[in-house]
């Protein structure tokens, strides 16, 4: 599983963190919130093969509890406008998310899903944090969190 840290400014803090996992259960979500908090990042997307969770900081406290689940959408629906360029949809989730993220950073206008609810999240949060961002790919969340 992979983590992608997106940055827009010389600030070392990422503006968006995207993580893939086998199943976004409570334990994984909790570890992801901790990772967001540690990195000073207010927005995260947690993908498993079926669903994408949008996690954001409410700034109600300076701890993990401050992060809430904003929305849950189908993974395929979030990435519905990705141009796969021959990459099979059966490719690993990491590779699909990586390709989607790079397209989102370079040409987000083409990546807005038709689903109005998902599109609203793109316009209000995701695009501002992802457009034109530099993308750093890291290893597994378990490795990062153990570090």
């Amino acid at each position, binding site marked *: 599983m992979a983590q992608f840290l997106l940055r827009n400014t010389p600030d070392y803090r990422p503006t968006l963190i995207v993580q893939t996992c086998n199943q976004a259960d409570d334990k994984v979500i909790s570890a992801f919130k901790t990772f967001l908090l540690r990195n000073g990042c207010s927005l995260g997307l947690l993908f498993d093969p079926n669903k994408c969770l949008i996690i954001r*900081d409410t*700034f109600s*406290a*300076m701890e993990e509890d401050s992060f809430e689940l904003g929305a849950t959408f189908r993974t395929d629906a979030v990435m519905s406008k990705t141009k796969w360029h021959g990459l099979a949809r059966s490719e690993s989730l990491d590779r699909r998310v990586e390709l989607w993220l790079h397209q989102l950073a370079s040409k987000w*206008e083409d990546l807005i899903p038709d689903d109005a609810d998902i599109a*609203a999240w793109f316009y209000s*949060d995701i*695009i*501002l944090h992802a*457009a034109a961002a530099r993308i750093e790919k890291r290893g597994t969340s378990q490795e990062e969190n153990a570090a």
Partner: protein
Amino acid sequence: MKHVFVETNFLVEVLRPLPTPQKRARDLLKRREQGEITLYIPWCSVTEVRRTLIDIIRRDLGFHDEMQRFAGLQMKAAREAKREAGFDNREIKKLKALAENATTEAIKSKNDRISHLVASLEIIQPSERVIEKTMEVCDIKTLKPFDEMVLGAVLARAEELQQAGERDLHFCTLDKSDLGPANNPNLKLAYDQCGLIFHADFSL
């Protein structure tokens, strides 16, 4: 009729959520709408603003995360100090909602607003003469490739207008370090030869 050349920073100033009042870009646009001036823009500035405006929107409206983070620290400090009054976060939340709505609107309407603005300007297309002129720019001043393209387009079109008998030619840009003639006699000569008057803002 005044002929006024502008480049990417004019588009940014007109389109950004928080324009800089003293730069007066919107005033210049108003004068075009009233038929006082014609505005010219190099083709490459149109492509550049499509790419860069999102970053400008982020700079103008992307402040609410840090604002809330700061408010969070104040709340924590108030709790730890057991202050009775605590820290009232309600106005912060209202401001955040306003900034989020403005961001959504700015992003959604970005391409339409660019197209609408550009339709009111005369675009200097990359003609053979514009490309030739761009290739000559390196003899005038060492610039980044993008600035070479801007300057090549402006000089080529200004020459055409001058040859057609036009005399009231102006170049308004905020980039005086790269495109200003003050410290570069070659660039001053190039502007003089085509009758172009340089301005480091839009208050013509």
